[in-house]
């Protein structure tokens, strides 16, 4: 079920209340979490439950055997079983048709038509996320960094934990699993901050992401009908759409977990304020980037095998990251683009640092921050073109249009701002993006939440009511406009 749905609005309070009723009995509480998580996941399609069950069971048994064995070959073999089963499911459900189509297309380049049809496969929601989560468990066990799960219930609950099951954050067993062993004490301030975070997530998803999607979809789904300026606007709006959609989901996941005493890792840290792509990937989808760092980049050698091997490893990681995001060449190109820029940054940073210092470009002053921040945002947006486009042709059309088809006169043409909706909707979107950026810019420095808590109860409650009514009036929801979260497709 979706977080922004009536179903979840009934589901979550019930689970929350039952959770705290059973909170003193750890086993009962974990059983409740497991049952409710399976209920949550099965709401999409009950058949998905079989996959997650098999995945969890294999890793639980593999984990136990691996821990008891001292034989490295046996342990490696068990790890391979886990990798084979989990990645096997992932590759089959997510990439089988992509490989079949690519195989057929590659032959068609030589004029050979192969009569191979694709399979009818439904992609289980969240498979990319929980697969990586369980793999982190078995890999860390193999590396002897953690101990196996104490009991099957807590492990199954860890894998299927509903707040973060379908779109992350991708948790590490070392961080999340121990939280299933201990009693959590009811903490009113944690519950309150969790609920506020959920409200913020809903604001980002329903008001910003889904509203921006109207414009973005109108342009990207009809590329031939638009010009360079609308491509540019749609791309920038997509940057906010995907950020607010994904981080909104993460906020709701983290907030919901927090109300139950669980601490999930931060997944986003105001990424659009980054001054380099390297910094961007320390702030964007942190759980995934750190997963790739720890389980792909470092095992490949990381930066320990010389300059060129480092560049290769970095590029390969992002190529794979692109593939993780979707079974299409546009995602692979997106990953490759990021990989190239990151390699470039790594290459020029060390060697050119004295040069930049002399030019005053490496100081942390406002003008440099704005310049590099804007440049980074622009580079990220160019990558988003490939991420969003419905195919390579559209991506190239949009890219070309952004660079060659923008007329300054059109900046003032109101039609470019009202694609898919009217000017008032556009104004609300701009206002909402501004509110979000202002909040995220000042969140850490000005301790926004602490300041809010210091206000009178009337002021605080008035603020909460305004937020709720703002979402109720300006949120995109209803029969024809309910939107799934973008990252569900991964």
């Amino acid at each position, binding site marked *: 079920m979706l977080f922004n749905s009536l179903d979840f609005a009934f589901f979550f309070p019930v689970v929350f209340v039952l959770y705290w009723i059973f909170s003193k009995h750890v086993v009962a509480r974990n059983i409740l979490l497991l049952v409710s998580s399976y209920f949550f996941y099965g709401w999409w399609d009950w058949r998905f439950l079989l996959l997650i069950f098999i995945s969890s069971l294999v890793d639980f048994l593999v984990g136990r055997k691996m821990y008891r064995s001292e034989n490295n070959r046996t342990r490696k073999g068990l790890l391979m079983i886990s990798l084979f089963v989990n990645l096997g499911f992932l590759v089959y459900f997510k990439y089988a048709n992509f490989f079949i189509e690519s195989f057929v297309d590659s032959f068609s380049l030589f004029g050979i038509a192969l009569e191979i049809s694709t399979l009818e496969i439904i992609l289980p929601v969240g498979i990319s996320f929980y697969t990586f989560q369980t793999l982190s468990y078995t890999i860390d066990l193999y590396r002897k960094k953690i101990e196996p799960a104490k009991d099957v219930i807590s492990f199954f609950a860890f894998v299927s934990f509903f707040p973060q099951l379908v779109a992350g954050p991708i948790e590490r067993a070392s961080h999340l699993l121990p939280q299933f062993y201990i009693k959590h004490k009811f903490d009113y301030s944690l519950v309150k901050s969790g609920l506020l975070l959920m409200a913020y997530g809903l604001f980002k998803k329903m008001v910003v992401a889904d509203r921006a999607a109207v414009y973005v979809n109108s342009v990207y789904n009809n590329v031939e009908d638009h010009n360079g300026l609308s491509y540019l606007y749609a791309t920038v709006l997509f940057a906010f759409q995907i950020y607010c959609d994904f981080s909104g989901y993460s906020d709701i996941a983290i907030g919901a977990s927090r109300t139950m005493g669980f601490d999930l890792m931060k997944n986003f840290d105001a990424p659009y304020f980054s001054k380099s792509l390297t910094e961007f990937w320390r702030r964007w989808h942190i759980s995934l980037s750190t997963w790739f760092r720890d389980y792909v980049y470092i095992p490949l050698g990381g930066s320990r095998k010389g300059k060129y091997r480092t560049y290769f490893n970095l590029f390969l990681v992002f190529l794979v990251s692109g593939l993780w995001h979707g079974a299409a060449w546009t995602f692979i190109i997106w990953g490759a683009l990021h990989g190239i820029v990151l390699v470039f940054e790594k290459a020029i940073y060390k060697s050119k640092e004295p040069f930049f210092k002399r030019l005053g470009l490496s100081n942390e002053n406002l003008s440099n921050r704005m310049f590099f921040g804007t440049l980074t945002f622009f580079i990220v947006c160019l990558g988003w073109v490939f991420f969003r486009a419905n195919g390579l042709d559209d991506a190239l059309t949009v890219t070309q249009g952004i660079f060659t088809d923008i007329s300054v006169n059109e900046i003032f043409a109101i039609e470019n701002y009202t694609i898919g909706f009217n000017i*008032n909707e556009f104004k609300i979107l701009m206002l909402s993006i501004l509110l979000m950026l202002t909040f995220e810019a000042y969140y850490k420095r000005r301790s926004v939440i602490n300041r809010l808590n210091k206000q009178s109860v009337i002021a605080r*409650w008035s603020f909460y*009511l305004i937020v*709720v*009514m703002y979402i*109720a*009036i*300006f949120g995109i929801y*209803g029969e024809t406009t309910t939107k799934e979260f973008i990252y569900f497709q991964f």
Partner: protein
Amino acid sequence: MRKLVLKVVLFLLLVLNMLFYSDSYFREDKIFNLTKDSYRDRQSDLDLAIFGSSHAYSTYDPRIFETELNLHSFNFGGSAQRLLTGLPLMEEVVGKNELKIAVVDIFDMSVQHDSLGENSRMLQLQTFDNTEFSFTKVKSFSTIFSFKKLLDIFPTLRNHGSWFELVGKSPHIPKDDADFYKGYVSKFESFDSQTWERFLTKVAKRKKEIPKALAKSESKIIDKVISVFQSKGIPLIFVNAPSYNYQHDKRYQAYQHLIGDYVVSQGFDYIDYNLLTDKIGLKKADFKDPNHLNPKGALKVSAHLSDFIKRNYSIPNRENIEFDQNRYDLISENFKNSTLKFEDLGEQISSKANINAVYVFKTSSYGYELVFRQSDSDVNNVHVKLKFGIDDEDKKKHLEMFGEQSMDGNIVKHYPFLRRDQSILYKGSRYSIYQFRAPYDNIMDMELYVGPKRDLKIFDSINIKQKN
């Protein structure tokens, strides 16, 4: 945890209150908004309330009940309103007034609320959006729309996507050709043969099976309606407005018999006006369309119903009430409270223009009615020209009508749109009715001309200050 639960409940109550407040801004512009708003504006304790669908609101004219029975009356009929939809509304009205009698219009559509088509369901929203929140409303809404759509009970949440169009819109005003009075809505028109043919084509596609008995859900909803009024000891009359199609529709006839037999078996009066058309003299000219009466027809049916109530129910009436916006009451009182009164107009006007008196009175804040008492009751129409002056202040507020170029310090002469004349026969005289709206602060130098060439002056140089 207890503190949290209490705070959450309190917060949700606050959110609900905010939604109730904002809902009035997010209602779509429909005629029932006007009905409910005018009911709220009047604030008087009702004696007689009428419920039902558009059949009700076009048939039972509160003006007649006020005049004949001296009772504060209101018509709560709503488009396509089912009894299930009207149930919370009935509870609300009964709860807020000391009703002396209630009238419920009932026919086959009223008792059917399962598997409604999309259009019918949407029409129920007019009534729901204007009924206060209650458990009955939630139950009715979720029966018609399903539990999953329950949040749509709030216009704010349902229509939030149209926030810019809806918020800040002016309150609903009746269309220029509508005759509106305390929930009664109709038009001064009748239908032609083309309309009749189209109607018959539409009716031919409807179900034809003749029901043998009322379904359980149908009798159950009638019981629920009865219990609302019975619990307060309010006399209740069931009626069925006349349909021009009655003779051609066997299924409709069968349903009315079943409904009538059922309510009579429960001990209530039932009047099917389809069976009284000859008695009260209803003709095709009394219908604005095959299913709805025009004001002439409404006058006949309402007069009969008020007479029925007078003869069969001992309802204590209010004494000495004057209904200044009610043409029938003004006629009965010889227009003593009308805004303007012109009688003994002379032989020339009487013979050439067929008018021997003119009365002008207000029907709402900016609405007026011109009533012409005709010399010859056999002649149906009179010819009228009305104009008055608008100053710059008023022109500024209505630029779309007058334009920037009219801001020249001069008083511009304005010819208001006069809603179509229709004559009625009441208390032995024929009256021609014209209505117009004058949404201006000042009406200056008003002039009225009548006659075939509209050159016979009734009055001029009349000034009316509408706003201080």
